[in-house]
């Protein structure tokens, strides 16, 4: 008989909670027709809070591995779990008034919980097998979420495109992992690291495997030149899902990259770092330039998020304690700004009953001052203005670059930031265009309250994180120590 590996159930409780919640909802789905929205949201919120609670509870526990070393539970896992749960909660609030929630709320929330579980597992992965399974768990569920608005062709197209291109990314990743397995004889990150430390990067199999793994993960992060899916998927997906994607997917994919590069491949840093430098420079500059010419707000912010991913790469390139802390804080800082910005777009879409473009938002800021001012704060946060959490994120990442002798990458990032102001200001200028009458219907749609609550919560997070970020920086520093590079 094959002996099953020991499982430390308490350690993986956050992920288990999410999966149990998802399955409970799927089972309930057929009984609660008509009350989908309320019950789905309630179960979703409770599950996310429970999962975050388990993670917080385990914060002081020493790092541990379980399931025969396939899963590692450390403070990085806990931080990611809490962050993803936070993104999920905000997304549920944004989604509450969405008409699809009324019809298929239980399924929507269940899928969201599965996505969260997959993302948490990515942060916990300690081998390419776990990484791939977790990646597919969240990707497959996310494909469906993107296509969830079945009546909208754009949504279906978005889901389909994401499915095809995302699968290519996954396949390339698996292919690369297979080569690495061939070269080192293991899927486990530690074993790969040990083997590579001895052998070095001379082996062609290692080079090929590393390149393919990098390409696979670059697809998921959405950096150039593997970003082509981002704008289409972001544009077509339901806006609440877009917000979740831009925040949570970025966290998960970057943490996956960090795990692979810092835990499994640190010995061949000289091989992958130069490639990432080129990708980062190209992505920051071209991503922001591409955003300049967009008129659809979701596409514009999609390219902005491509540019932001390029900026995040700086932290990976620099590595070390400062770099990893910067990366984690930057990802956490990006989340409320992204979810908030897309929540405001959601609100506008409901007001306007159509897609959000630079034309449609003209003068809208005067009708919805709170949402519009929040949008200004989120956009200035993207640009890294002081008193927003985006500034602190930029500060720590640029700081790590200056410290790590990559100051010139910092200069590139500065140029990219100035370019980004070009389109961020266009949104602000359009929202507060006095000359235009927005002429929208200000109907009090149901669920507007929770959407507004989500916006205000994001606003509060962005401002508090920008003024008093000390605690968050400490947590990020602790989590950074979980990665080999941060120790």
């Amino acid at each position, binding site marked *: 008989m094959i002996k099953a590996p020991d499982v430390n159930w308490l350690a993986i409780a956050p992920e288990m909670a999410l999966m149990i919640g998802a399955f409970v909802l799927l089972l309930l789905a057929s009984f609660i027709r008509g009350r989908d929205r309320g019950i789905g949201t309630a179960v979703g919120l409770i599950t996310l809070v429970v999962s975050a609670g388990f993670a917080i509870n385990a914060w002081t526990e020493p790092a541990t591995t379980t399931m025969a070393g396939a899963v590692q539970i450390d403070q990085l896992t806990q931080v990611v779990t809490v962050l993803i749960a936070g993104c999920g909660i905000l997304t549920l609030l944004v989604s509450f008034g969405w008409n699809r929630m009324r019809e298929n709320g239980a399924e929507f929330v269940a899928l969201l919980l599965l996505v969260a579980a997959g993302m948490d597992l990515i942060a916990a992965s300690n081998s390419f097998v776990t990484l791939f399974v977790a990646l597919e768990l969240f990707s497959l569920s996310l494909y469906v979420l993107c296509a969830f608005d079945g009546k909208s062709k754009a949504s279906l197209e978005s889901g389909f495109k994401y499915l095809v291109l995302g699968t290519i990314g996954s396949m390339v990743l698996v292919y690369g992992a297979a080569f690495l397995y061939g070269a080192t004889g293991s899927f486990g990150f530690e074993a790969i690291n040990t083997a590579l430390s001895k052998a070095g990067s001379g082996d062609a199999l290692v080079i090929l495997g590393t390149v393919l793994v990098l390409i696979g993960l670059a697809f998921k992060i959405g950096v150039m030149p593997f970003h082509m899916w981002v704008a289409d998927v972001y544009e077509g997906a339901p806006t609440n899902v877009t917000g979740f994607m831009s925040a949570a997917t970025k966290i998960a994919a970057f943490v996956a990259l960090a795990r692979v590069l810092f835990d499994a491949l640190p010995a061949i840093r000289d091989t992958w770092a130069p490639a990432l430098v080129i990708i980062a420079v190209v992505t920051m500059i071209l991503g922001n330039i591409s955003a300049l010419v967009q008129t659809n707000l979701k596409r514009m912010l999609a390219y902005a998020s491509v540019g932001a991913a390029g900026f995040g790469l700086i932290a990976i390139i620099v590595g070390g304690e400062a770099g990893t802390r910067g990366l984690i804080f930057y990802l956490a800082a990006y989340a409320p700004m992204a979810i908030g910005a897309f929540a405001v777009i959601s609100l506008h879409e409901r007001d306007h009953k159509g897609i959000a473009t630079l034309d449609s938002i003209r003068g809208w800021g*005067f009708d919805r*001052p709170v949402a519009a*001012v929040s949008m*200004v704060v989120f956009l*200035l946060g993207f*640009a*890294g*203005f*002081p*008193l927003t959490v985006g500034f*602190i994120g*930029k*500060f*720590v990442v*640029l*700081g790590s670059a*200056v*410290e790590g002798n990559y*100051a010139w990458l*910092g*200069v590139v990032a*500065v*140029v990219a*930031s*100035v370019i980004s*102001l*070009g389109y961020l*200001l266009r949104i*602000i*200028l359009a929202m*507060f265009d*006095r000359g235009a009458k927005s002429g929208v219907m200000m109907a009090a749609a149901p669920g507007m309250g929770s959407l507004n609550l989500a916006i205000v919560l994001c606003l509060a997070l962005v401002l508090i994180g920008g003024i*008093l*970020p*000390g605690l968050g*920086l*400490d947590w990020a*520093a602790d989590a950074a120590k979980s990665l080999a590079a941060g120790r």
Partner: protein
Amino acid sequence: MITISTLIAVPAIAAVVLLVIPFARQAAGYLALLVSLAVLGAVIGFIYRFEPVAGYQFSDDVSWIAPLGVRWHVAVNGVSLAMIAVTALITTCALGFALWAKRDRSHASFALILLTEAFLFLVFAARDLFAFYVGFEGMLIPLLVLLVVWGGAGRKFATLQVIAYTAFGTLLMLLGILYLGLTAPGGPNFDMTAAIGRGNDWVFFAFAIAFAIKSPLFPLHGWVLPAYRNASPEVAAVLSGVASKAGAFAFLAVLVPLFPSQSEKYAWVFIALGTIGFLWGSLLAFRQPDGRGVVAYSSIAQMSFIVLGIFLLSDRGATGATFQMVNHALVSAALFLVVGWLETQVGSGSFAQLGGLARRRPVLATVSMVLGMAALAVPGSSVFASEFLIMLGAFENHWWLGAIVALGVVLAAMYMLRWISAILHDRESALAGTLNPPDLKKGALMAILPLVLVLIGLSIAPAQFTDRVDASAHALISAAAKEAGR
């Protein structure tokens, strides 16, 4: 006891309250005015308690973001207190003018002006580079919204220009700040004192470009004209009066003390650019077709002149530059308010539409005349005193530098006289004749008069001012002056 921190916090908190609660125009206006008057009173209290010595006083120093080594460290010396005082005064006048001008959505506009004041206070008082950066970059946020929402016809282009220029400069400075803060011995430390003398040439220019853009120093003045033309008058007054002074102030109080050897080494660059900017701006001011254009270009000229004064790295230059910063702040703010008032009455600031307004309008004529005389530095005026100090410093440096600078002062007389005659004298234009605007009175006058009175006060007793800032100004440039062997 009122501390510098409270001074910064009060307008900021008042701004948030005004933003969140949609007060009616009158209520919001009087509340904002009350807050700014209280702040002004507190500042006068500080001036009263101030000891005229070199060091920083009224220091608040607590940990802010411990993991980054960032502290909330604010304190003032003579130079920064002078700037804070003039900021408080101009903000009050700008609010008064905004209340008189009856802006739409006024509670938000009052709030943003107060927010700008708070950020400016932070710039002038910060002793920690992080806090300084927050103020320096942060003040762009309210100014940006003020320009976008209440600006004139060309506001979009103006906003893009302002933000693109200044953000580029400040972000470069951010890299410099990170370098200084993170390479500090004994862990990250962003305190300015800890950064003295540790920067290299790259870092020096990262700071210098940011300050040169903000000042503005020739040739980085491209954003100024669209911004000053399109901002509402009270915002233009704050922009040209104090926001741009943040750049010149930072040259004197941050760049020169932090980088003494580089400041000495590259002083010639700033002297050269300052001289060119002074002459160039003055010439262009002479050619402008409207009131705002003249004030805008004269601002560019005067700011270049001030930067020149700073980089003379002499006591006279430093004190003169500080005095000139205050004088020019008062003059340009008041001029923008006068031009703004004219625009609301006549519907245009173009000289072609104005003229002959002195007749039957004694108050307007007197106020404009006093301001004009101050701006062209008539002997006896406070501007004369400060320009004279800088000129003296220039002569000490090189006789020919003094001679060139004197030429610029003559040009200033030319454009200001043209400004006065185009508005007050000449033939009355058809438009002004038919509209027959009233004399400057009540609300608008109340907003402009304090600036004029303070100018007159400074003219009567300039020593009251220079005695208080002398020691501080000297301390700021002394390390660099020592490098220069002076």
